[in-house]
């Protein structure tokens, strides 16, 4: 059975590093990016099953990543993380068919459960 692949996008390097350690231990294939541009470029080359993205980033932000992914690769599930606890943003993300939405600080267990549900394993 092939590994599920997850893409993490967050301008906080620790988020990607920790997610990689934690998720790889659970048998996922993980790639991390510090900005939206490089992540979207990578998506053109490789198909991921789940994209976990931070909301507020310089340049292409989380909402734009969500919209682009949903437009170009509708099959990919997108999970949003944000340090900006703002209901309006969450609602906007929901309209754009976000799979799940986590405010920071994130519980990794909950994030993993959400990824599983996204992959239809929950």
């Amino acid at each position, binding site marked *: 059975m092939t590994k599920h692949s997850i893409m993490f996008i967050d301008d*906080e390097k*620790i*988020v990607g590093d920790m997610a990689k*350690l*934690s998720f790889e231990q659970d048998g996922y294939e993980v790639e991390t990016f510090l900005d939206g541009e490089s992540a979207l470029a990578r998506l053109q080359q490789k198909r991921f099953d789940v994209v976990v993205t931070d909301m*507020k980033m310089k340049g292409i932000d989380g909402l734009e990543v969500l919209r682009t992914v949903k437009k170009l690769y509708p099959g990919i599930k997108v999970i949003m993380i944000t*340090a900006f606890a703002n209901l309006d943003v969450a609602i906007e993300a929901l309209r754009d068919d976000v799979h799940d939405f986590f*405010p*920071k600080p*994130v519980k990794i267990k909950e994030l993993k459960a959400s990824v599983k549900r996204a992959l239809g394993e929950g």
Partner: protein
Amino acid sequence: MKIEHKIYLSNAVNIVLIVLIGLFALQNLNEILTKFRFIVIAEGLNANFLEMRLAEKNYFLYGDDNALYNIRSRINQTSDTMLQVRNDITRAVGAEKYATLLDHLHTYDQMIDSISKSRPRDAEAQKKLREVGQKLKTFSEDITALESSRIDAIIISSRNILFYSIWTVVLFALLFSNLIVRNIGQSLRKVVNLTRAISKGNYPKIKEKPSNDEMGAVISAINSMAEELQRREKEIVQSKRLASIGVLVAGVAHELNNPLNNISMLAQTYAEVYDGLGKEDRISFMERVDEETERLRVIIHNLLDYAKPKEQHLARADTNQVVQKVLALVKNMLDISNIKIKLTLAENLPDIYIDEHQIQQVLVNMATNAIQAMDRGGELRIGTRYVPDTDEIEIEIADKGKGIAPEFLDHIFDPFFTTKGDSGTGLGLWVSYGIIKNHQGNIRVTSQIGIGTTFIITLPSCKKLKRCTDDEA
């Protein structure tokens, strides 16, 4: 008195004057007409009297009965005419003169009667008749001449009076309109000054009791508008302050949540992958936790530092000297960034009353922003000037940098708003704004993408503040 009433009054006065002049002219014209009619009649009578005298002469020379008959018919004719135009004559010269004239005529008639009866020529009677005839003719001619000269006098006096009355009316009209216009003009100037002040954000009420006219109504309307504006401005400032606290809190949440999340994820992962970690890895984990904690500490320290209400140490200062000191502070940065400085400092600026340290902080902050906006070098322009209208000093800091997008311009004074990414705290302009507001000043900004940004700081001069003594004093 209302302006409306003043105008009515001045019109009424002028109308009364014009009617009086008209009535006077009318009366004079009537008098002239009466006298003129009399003169026409009198000329006729005079002609008759002349004819009588001629016929009288003929009668005495030739004893011609025809002449006598002629005199009789003239007398009758004159007598008839005088009866017919009795009113006209009486009106012109009075009943007395009319009676005298009639009396003379009767006497003449009787003399003619007696002479025609005493056929033998009576030299004495002839002489008497001549005298009476002469008297009749002279009297008639005299009153005619008198009335003629009276007409002349009336016309001259009418002409003079009309001439002066026209000037009087004109003067009155000018005087009244001048009074009203000056009154309106003064009030309008007050209104203009008032609205100008209001548009500048000042609310100087006109304190004197507004006059009881339309302009007074306008001024009290503007006064109450200014009060209302002031009240609303306070409300807006209040709600902006609340909104600013909201933005601050949201910003703080975001700033704190990121390192918190990092620590949380480090801890969670540490526990999860603990068995697979070597000693070095574990140390690295803990170091990263420590780094994130430090990051939190710095944020909280900055926040406390900015939030702490600082005591102001106000003192008289010279704006240009403050600017020079700031330049010395940023000179190094300017040199490194290859930025030229262009100073336009106005001379003889009134002093300002400031906490110099705080104002320096603001100017350094602005200069730093400008330098950062010109990462490829350029020119930093700093200018000072005095604005006499408002008694304020303006300090202008302009760069030829990237410029700020219009959608960001409204937010640059918000806490935690930054266009500089990680290199900015987003607090510099927010704090600067607070400092300048505490100094009763203001900051304006204009910016165009690709052309540059200009900040203008306004501070009240000592002249405006009126109390400008040093803290120590």
